[in-house]
Protein backbone atom coordinates (compact mmCIF):
# COMPACT_ATOMS: atom_id res chain seq x y z
CA UNK A 1 0.00 0.00 0.00
CA UNK A 2 1.64 3.21 -1.08
CA UNK A 3 2.02 6.27 1.01
CA UNK A 4 -0.49 8.38 -0.86
CA UNK A 5 -3.12 5.68 -0.77
CA UNK A 6 -2.63 5.46 2.97
CA UNK A 7 -3.15 9.19 3.23
CA UNK A 8 -6.30 8.83 1.22
CA UNK A 9 -7.49 5.97 3.39
CA UNK A 10 -6.91 8.02 6.48
CA UNK A 11 -8.79 10.94 5.04
CA UNK A 12 -11.67 8.74 3.98
CA UNK A 13 -11.98 6.98 7.31
CA UNK A 14 -11.89 10.31 9.12
CA UNK A 15 -14.58 11.76 6.91
CA UNK A 16 -16.97 8.87 6.61
CA UNK A 17 -16.53 6.26 9.24
CA UNK A 18 -15.85 8.11 12.44
CA UNK A 19 -18.24 9.80 14.81
CA UNK A 20 -17.06 13.30 15.52
CA UNK A 21 -16.87 15.05 18.85
CA UNK A 22 -16.27 18.68 19.74
CA UNK A 23 -12.51 19.25 19.90
CA UNK A 24 -12.75 21.66 22.80
CA UNK A 25 -14.52 19.02 24.82
CA UNK A 26 -11.61 16.63 24.26
CA UNK A 27 -9.09 19.34 25.07
CA UNK A 28 -10.86 20.35 28.26
CA UNK A 29 -11.39 16.72 29.36
CA UNK A 30 -7.75 15.80 28.81
CA UNK A 31 -6.67 19.02 30.48
CA UNK A 32 -8.72 18.37 33.56
CA UNK A 33 -7.33 14.81 33.75
CA UNK A 34 -3.76 16.14 33.72
CA UNK A 35 -4.52 18.98 36.12
CA UNK A 36 -6.23 16.63 38.57
CA UNK A 37 -3.35 14.16 38.38
CA UNK A 38 -0.90 16.95 39.15
CA UNK A 39 -2.95 17.98 42.13
CA UNK A 40 -3.47 14.45 43.43
CA UNK A 41 0.18 13.50 43.09
CA UNK A 42 1.30 16.73 44.74
CA UNK A 43 3.41 18.02 41.94
CA UNK A 44 5.43 14.84 41.46
CA UNK A 45 5.56 15.29 37.72
CA UNK A 46 7.61 12.17 37.09
CA UNK A 47 4.82 10.12 38.62
CA UNK A 48 2.23 12.08 36.62
CA UNK A 49 4.08 11.17 33.44
CA UNK A 50 4.03 7.50 34.46
CA UNK A 51 0.32 7.53 35.21
CA UNK A 52 -0.48 9.24 31.92
CA UNK A 53 1.58 6.60 30.14
CA UNK A 54 -0.32 3.84 31.95
CA UNK A 55 -3.68 5.35 31.03
CA UNK A 56 -2.54 5.68 27.45
CA UNK A 57 -1.40 2.06 27.44
CA UNK A 58 -4.84 0.85 28.47
CA UNK A 59 -6.41 3.02 25.82
CA UNK A 60 -4.03 1.72 23.17
CA UNK A 61 -4.82 -1.92 23.90
CA UNK A 62 -8.45 -1.30 22.97
CA UNK A 63 -7.91 1.38 20.40
CA UNK A 64 -6.04 -0.96 18.08
CA UNK A 65 -9.14 -3.11 17.62
CA UNK A 66 -11.22 -0.08 16.73
CA UNK A 67 -8.47 1.04 14.37
CA UNK A 68 -8.29 -2.32 12.62
CA UNK A 69 -12.04 -2.54 12.35
CA UNK A 70 -12.50 0.93 10.86
CA UNK A 71 -9.49 1.06 8.60
CA UNK A 72 -10.10 -2.41 7.23
CA UNK A 73 -6.42 -3.23 7.03
CA UNK A 74 -5.96 -6.75 5.84
CA UNK A 75 -2.22 -7.05 5.57
CA UNK A 76 0.44 -6.71 8.16
CA UNK A 77 3.02 -4.00 7.58
CA UNK A 78 6.05 -5.33 5.79
CA UNK A 79 8.58 -3.41 7.87
CA UNK A 80 8.86 -0.81 10.58
CA UNK A 81 8.89 2.03 8.08
CA UNK A 82 5.47 0.98 6.87
CA UNK A 83 4.29 0.84 10.44
CA UNK A 84 5.42 4.41 11.00
CA UNK A 85 3.66 5.52 7.87
CA UNK A 86 0.40 3.86 8.88
CA UNK A 87 0.54 5.30 12.40
CA UNK A 88 1.02 8.78 11.09
CA UNK A 89 -1.24 8.85 8.05
CA UNK A 90 -4.08 6.59 9.10
CA UNK A 91 -3.95 6.26 12.87
CA UNK A 92 -3.48 9.82 14.00
CA UNK A 93 -5.59 11.11 11.13
CA UNK A 94 -8.47 8.89 12.11
CA UNK A 95 -8.58 9.73 15.77
CA UNK A 96 -7.21 13.25 16.09
CA UNK A 97 -7.36 14.55 12.53
CA UNK A 98 -3.67 15.43 12.54
CA UNK A 99 -0.84 14.01 10.47
CA UNK A 100 2.45 14.20 12.33
CA UNK A 101 5.59 14.16 10.19
CA UNK A 102 7.96 11.22 10.31
CA UNK A 103 11.61 12.11 10.58
CA UNK A 104 14.96 11.22 12.04
CA UNK A 105 15.15 7.57 11.09
CA UNK A 106 18.02 5.79 12.73
CA UNK A 107 20.43 3.89 10.53
CA UNK A 108 19.06 0.47 11.43
CA UNK A 109 15.50 1.62 10.67
CA UNK A 110 14.37 0.81 14.17
CA UNK A 111 13.87 4.31 15.54
CA UNK A 112 12.01 7.32 14.23
CA UNK A 113 10.52 10.57 15.41
CA UNK A 114 7.04 11.94 15.06
CA UNK A 115 6.94 15.72 14.75
CA UNK A 116 3.64 17.29 15.76
CA UNK A 117 3.00 20.71 14.32
CA UNK A 118 -0.36 20.88 16.02
CA UNK A 119 -1.50 19.06 19.11
CA UNK A 120 -5.23 19.28 19.83
CA UNK A 121 -4.74 17.94 23.35
CA UNK A 122 -2.62 20.94 24.28
CA UNK A 123 -4.65 23.85 22.92
CA UNK A 124 -4.62 26.93 25.17
CA UNK A 125 -2.44 25.18 27.73
CA UNK A 126 0.29 26.91 29.68
CA UNK A 127 2.30 24.84 32.08
CA UNK A 128 2.14 26.00 35.71
CA UNK A 129 4.87 28.32 36.81
CA UNK A 130 6.27 26.43 39.76
CA UNK A 131 9.72 25.80 38.33
CA UNK A 132 9.41 22.04 38.12
CA UNK A 133 6.62 21.62 35.59
CA UNK A 134 8.56 23.22 32.78
CA UNK A 135 11.35 20.73 33.06
CA UNK A 136 9.61 17.58 34.25
CA UNK A 137 6.08 17.31 32.89
CA UNK A 138 5.36 15.87 29.46
CA UNK A 139 1.84 17.11 28.97
CA UNK A 140 0.82 14.80 26.12
CA UNK A 141 2.42 11.70 27.58
CA UNK A 142 -0.78 9.74 27.16
CA UNK A 143 -0.09 9.58 23.44
CA UNK A 144 3.12 7.66 24.14
CA UNK A 145 1.19 5.09 26.12
CA UNK A 146 -1.42 4.76 23.39
CA UNK A 147 1.18 3.97 20.78
CA UNK A 148 2.96 1.52 23.06
CA UNK A 149 -0.27 -0.35 23.90
CA UNK A 150 -1.59 -0.41 20.37
CA UNK A 151 1.64 -1.71 18.84
CA UNK A 152 1.98 -4.35 21.51
CA UNK A 153 -1.30 -5.89 20.37
CA UNK A 154 0.08 -6.25 16.86
CA UNK A 155 3.18 -8.01 18.00
CA UNK A 156 5.60 -5.11 18.27
CA UNK A 157 7.24 -4.10 21.49
CA UNK A 158 8.19 -0.45 21.29
CA UNK A 159 9.24 2.35 23.56
CA UNK A 160 7.75 5.79 22.97
CA UNK A 161 8.70 8.99 24.76
CA UNK A 162 8.71 12.73 24.15
CA UNK A 163 11.98 14.54 23.54
CA UNK A 164 10.71 18.07 23.11
CA UNK A 165 7.46 19.95 23.59
CA UNK A 166 6.36 23.44 22.59
CA UNK A 167 4.64 23.81 25.97
CA UNK A 168 8.07 23.59 27.53
CA UNK A 169 9.44 26.29 25.28
CA UNK A 170 11.07 24.10 22.64
CA UNK A 171 10.53 24.74 18.96
CA UNK A 172 8.72 21.53 18.11
CA UNK A 173 6.81 18.75 19.76
CA UNK A 174 8.70 15.55 19.00
CA UNK A 175 8.04 11.96 20.08
CA UNK A 176 10.72 9.34 19.67
CA UNK A 177 9.62 5.75 19.00
CA UNK A 178 12.00 2.85 18.92
CA UNK A 179 11.31 -0.76 18.21
CA UNK A 180 12.58 -3.13 20.85
CA UNK A 181 11.58 -6.41 19.25
CA UNK A 182 8.88 -8.22 17.36
CA UNK A 183 6.78 -10.45 19.60
CA UNK A 184 6.38 -14.01 18.40
CA UNK A 185 3.04 -15.76 18.10
CA UNK A 186 2.09 -17.63 21.19
CA UNK A 187 1.98 -21.41 21.00
CA UNK A 188 -0.83 -23.25 22.70
CA UNK A 189 0.09 -24.96 25.90
CA UNK A 190 1.20 -28.50 25.47
CA UNK A 191 -0.79 -30.37 28.01
CA UNK A 192 -1.73 -33.54 26.18
Amino acid at each position, binding site marked *: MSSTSRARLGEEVWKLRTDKINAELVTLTY*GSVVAQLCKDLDGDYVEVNKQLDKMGYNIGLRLIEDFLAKSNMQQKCANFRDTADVISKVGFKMFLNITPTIANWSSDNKQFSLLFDENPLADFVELPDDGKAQSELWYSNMLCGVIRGALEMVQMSVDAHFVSDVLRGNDTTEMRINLIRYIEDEMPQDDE
Partner: protein
Amino acid sequence: MPLVKTLPLDDVILTEDESTAVYRYDSGVVSFADLQIARGERGLKTGAVTISSSFLSPSPSHLSLDIVVVFVIIIMAGSSTSYYFVIIGTKDNPLYEAEFGSFKQGGDGIAKFREEQRHMNQFIAHSSLDCIEDQQWASKEMYLKTVDKFNNTWVSCFLTGGNIKFLLVHDTRSDEPIRQFFTDVYDLYCKTLMNPFYEVNMAIRSQTFDQKIKAAAKKYL
Protein backbone atom coordinates in the same frame (compact mmCIF):
# COMPACT_ATOMS: atom_id res chain seq x y z
CA MET B 1 -12.03 95.01 27.23
CA PRO B 2 -11.48 91.35 27.39
CA LEU B 3 -10.38 89.71 24.23
CA VAL B 4 -11.27 86.12 23.76
CA LYS B 5 -8.96 84.35 21.46
CA THR B 6 -9.20 80.83 20.33
CA LEU B 7 -5.93 79.14 19.73
CA PRO B 8 -5.32 75.97 17.77
CA LEU B 9 -4.27 73.09 19.94
CA ASP B 10 -0.91 72.50 18.40
CA ASP B 11 0.22 76.00 18.95
CA VAL B 12 -0.04 75.88 22.68
CA ILE B 13 2.59 74.12 24.69
CA LEU B 14 2.15 73.33 28.33
CA THR B 15 5.09 73.02 30.62
CA GLU B 16 5.65 69.84 32.59
CA ASP B 17 3.98 70.93 35.75
CA GLU B 18 1.11 72.44 33.81
CA SER B 19 1.48 75.79 35.37
CA THR B 20 2.61 77.74 32.33
CA ALA B 21 1.43 77.73 28.77
CA VAL B 22 3.43 79.16 25.97
CA TYR B 23 1.81 80.37 22.83
CA ARG B 24 3.81 81.07 19.77
CA TYR B 25 2.35 83.39 17.23
CA ASP B 26 3.63 85.19 14.22
CA SER B 27 5.62 87.88 15.79
CA GLY B 28 6.61 86.40 19.06
CA VAL B 29 5.84 84.41 22.06
CA VAL B 30 3.41 84.96 24.85
CA SER B 31 3.58 82.97 27.98
CA PHE B 32 0.77 82.72 30.40
CA ALA B 33 1.88 81.96 33.87
CA ASP B 34 -0.06 80.95 36.93
CA LEU B 35 -2.57 79.18 34.93
CA GLN B 36 -5.65 77.92 36.64
CA ILE B 37 -6.20 74.81 34.74
CA ALA B 38 -9.52 73.10 35.01
CA ARG B 39 -9.63 69.55 33.84
CA GLY B 40 -12.70 68.66 31.97
CA GLU B 41 -13.95 67.18 28.83
CA ARG B 42 -11.59 66.47 26.07
CA GLY B 43 -11.83 69.08 23.37
CA LEU B 44 -12.11 68.40 19.71
CA LYS B 45 -9.12 66.57 18.36
CA THR B 46 -8.18 69.08 15.78
CA GLY B 47 -10.24 71.85 17.17
CA ALA B 48 -9.22 74.79 19.17
CA VAL B 49 -8.47 75.12 22.78
CA THR B 50 -9.31 78.24 24.57
CA ILE B 51 -7.03 79.25 27.33
CA SER B 52 -7.73 81.42 30.25
CA SER B 53 -5.28 83.00 32.48
CA SER B 54 -5.78 85.14 35.49
CA PHE B 55 -2.48 86.74 34.94
CA LEU B 56 -0.93 87.77 31.72
CA SER B 57 2.73 88.47 31.44
CA PRO B 58 3.18 90.29 28.21
CA SER B 59 6.45 90.14 26.44
CA PRO B 60 5.94 91.36 22.91
CA SER B 61 5.88 95.08 22.77
CA HIS B 62 2.89 95.49 20.59
CA LEU B 63 0.55 93.75 22.91
CA SER B 64 -1.19 96.38 24.90
CA LEU B 65 -0.93 96.11 28.60
CA ASP B 66 -4.50 97.11 28.86
CA ILE B 67 -5.75 94.06 27.23
CA VAL B 68 -6.78 91.58 29.68
CA VAL B 69 -7.00 88.48 27.80
CA VAL B 70 -9.39 86.09 29.15
CA PHE B 71 -9.15 82.61 27.95
CA VAL B 72 -10.88 79.61 29.16
CA ILE B 73 -8.69 76.64 29.42
CA ILE B 74 -9.96 73.30 28.46
CA ILE B 75 -7.00 71.11 28.73
CA MET B 76 -6.59 68.49 26.09
CA ALA B 77 -6.55 64.95 27.32
CA GLY B 78 -4.64 63.68 24.30
CA SER B 79 -1.17 62.66 25.09
CA SER B 80 -1.44 62.62 28.82
CA THR B 81 -4.40 60.31 29.28
CA SER B 82 -3.61 57.42 31.51
CA TYR B 83 -5.55 54.28 32.21
CA TYR B 84 -5.55 51.90 35.09
CA PHE B 85 -6.92 48.49 34.22
CA VAL B 86 -7.79 45.79 36.71
CA ILE B 87 -9.54 42.41 36.54
CA ILE B 88 -11.50 41.60 39.68
CA GLY B 89 -12.64 38.11 40.59
CA THR B 90 -15.83 36.86 42.17
CA LYS B 91 -14.54 37.46 45.69
CA ASP B 92 -13.58 41.07 44.96
CA ASN B 93 -9.98 39.98 44.70
CA PRO B 94 -7.81 41.52 42.00
CA LEU B 95 -6.56 38.97 39.47
CA TYR B 96 -4.57 41.22 37.20
CA GLU B 97 -3.73 44.91 37.02
CA ALA B 98 -1.94 47.10 34.52
CA GLU B 99 -1.41 50.74 33.81
CA PHE B 100 -1.12 52.27 30.40
CA GLY B 101 -0.98 55.67 28.90
CA SER B 102 -2.65 56.52 25.68
CA PHE B 103 -0.85 55.77 22.48
CA LYS B 104 -2.90 58.23 20.51
CA GLN B 105 -1.64 61.60 19.38
CA GLY B 106 1.94 60.70 19.83
CA GLY B 107 1.65 59.51 23.38
CA ASP B 108 4.33 57.08 24.42
CA GLY B 109 2.03 54.66 26.20
CA ILE B 110 3.50 55.11 29.61
CA ALA B 111 1.04 56.00 32.32
CA LYS B 112 1.50 59.41 33.75
CA PHE B 113 -0.12 59.09 37.09
CA ARG B 114 1.18 61.02 39.96
CA GLU B 115 2.22 58.92 42.91
CA GLU B 116 -0.82 59.60 45.04
CA GLN B 117 -3.01 59.08 42.07
CA ARG B 118 -1.64 55.57 41.75
CA HIS B 119 -2.90 54.54 45.16
CA MET B 120 -6.15 56.32 44.57
CA ASN B 121 -6.75 54.29 41.44
CA GLN B 122 -7.08 51.11 43.44
CA PHE B 123 -9.47 52.70 45.89
CA ILE B 124 -11.52 54.19 43.09
CA ALA B 125 -11.77 50.83 41.41
CA HIS B 126 -12.89 49.09 44.57
CA SER B 127 -15.39 51.69 45.52
CA SER B 128 -17.00 51.41 42.14
CA LEU B 129 -17.72 47.75 42.79
CA ASP B 130 -20.79 48.73 44.79
CA CYS B 131 -22.12 50.78 41.90
CA ILE B 132 -21.51 47.88 39.60
CA GLU B 133 -23.48 45.52 41.79
CA ASP B 134 -26.39 47.90 41.71
CA GLN B 135 -26.30 48.28 38.00
CA GLN B 136 -25.48 44.78 36.90
CA TRP B 137 -28.96 43.37 37.26
CA ALA B 138 -30.57 46.26 35.44
CA SER B 139 -28.74 45.74 32.20
CA LYS B 140 -28.58 42.76 29.89
CA GLU B 141 -25.33 43.89 28.37
CA MET B 142 -21.91 42.67 29.41
CA TYR B 143 -20.38 46.08 28.75
CA LEU B 144 -21.74 48.40 31.42
CA LYS B 145 -20.11 51.54 30.05
CA THR B 146 -19.29 54.09 32.69
CA VAL B 147 -20.49 53.03 36.09
CA ASP B 148 -18.92 55.57 38.39
CA LYS B 149 -17.24 58.91 38.48
CA PHE B 150 -14.85 60.09 41.14
CA ASN B 151 -13.64 63.69 41.01
CA ASN B 152 -12.57 63.76 37.44
CA THR B 153 -11.84 60.11 36.83
CA TRP B 154 -14.30 57.73 35.25
CA VAL B 155 -14.67 54.04 35.81
CA SER B 156 -15.89 51.79 33.02
CA CYS B 157 -16.76 48.20 33.56
CA PHE B 158 -17.22 45.01 31.57
CA LEU B 159 -18.94 42.16 33.35
CA THR B 160 -18.42 38.56 32.25
CA GLY B 161 -20.89 35.73 32.62
CA GLY B 162 -18.90 34.32 35.54
CA ASN B 163 -19.16 37.58 37.48
CA ILE B 164 -15.60 38.60 36.69
CA LYS B 165 -15.25 42.37 36.31
CA PHE B 166 -12.87 44.21 34.04
CA LEU B 167 -12.49 47.75 35.32
CA LEU B 168 -10.86 50.63 33.57
CA VAL B 169 -10.11 53.84 35.47
CA HIS B 170 -9.57 56.70 33.08
CA ASP B 171 -9.80 60.43 32.93
CA THR B 172 -11.51 60.95 29.60
CA ARG B 173 -14.70 59.57 28.21
CA SER B 174 -14.54 57.40 25.15
CA ASP B 175 -17.06 54.62 24.84
CA GLU B 176 -16.30 52.88 21.62
CA PRO B 177 -12.53 52.32 21.93
CA ILE B 178 -13.00 51.12 25.47
CA ARG B 179 -15.70 48.70 24.38
CA GLN B 180 -13.41 47.27 21.72
CA PHE B 181 -10.59 47.01 24.22
CA PHE B 182 -12.84 45.13 26.64
CA THR B 183 -13.95 42.76 23.92
CA ASP B 184 -10.34 41.88 23.20
CA VAL B 185 -9.61 41.41 26.88
CA TYR B 186 -12.63 39.13 27.20
CA ASP B 187 -11.31 36.99 24.38
CA LEU B 188 -7.90 36.75 26.10
CA TYR B 189 -9.55 35.97 29.43
CA CYS B 190 -11.57 33.12 27.90
CA LYS B 191 -8.38 31.65 26.50
CA THR B 192 -6.80 31.84 29.95
CA LEU B 193 -9.79 29.99 31.38
CA MET B 194 -9.26 27.20 28.86
CA ASN B 195 -5.88 26.46 30.42
CA PRO B 196 -6.48 23.40 32.61
CA PHE B 197 -3.97 24.58 35.18
CA TYR B 198 -5.78 27.85 35.73
CA GLU B 199 -8.59 27.98 38.22
CA VAL B 200 -11.21 30.67 38.46
CA ASN B 201 -10.19 33.40 40.88
CA MET B 202 -6.51 32.57 40.48
CA ALA B 203 -4.14 35.45 39.78
CA ILE B 204 -3.18 35.71 36.14
CA ARG B 205 0.59 35.69 35.97
CA SER B 206 1.20 34.64 32.42
CA GLN B 207 3.66 36.71 30.43
CA THR B 208 1.82 36.13 27.18
CA PHE B 209 -1.40 37.42 28.70
CA ASP B 210 0.42 40.54 29.87
CA GLN B 211 1.92 41.21 26.47
CA LYS B 212 -1.35 40.68 24.68
CA ILE B 213 -3.22 43.03 27.01
CA LYS B 214 -0.64 45.69 26.36
CA ALA B 215 -0.93 45.11 22.64
CA ALA B 216 -4.72 45.46 22.84
CA ALA B 217 -4.31 48.66 24.79
CA LYS B 218 -1.97 49.96 22.15
CA LYS B 219 -4.48 49.13 19.48
CA TYR B 220 -7.55 50.71 20.97
CA LEU B 221 -6.64 53.18 23.70
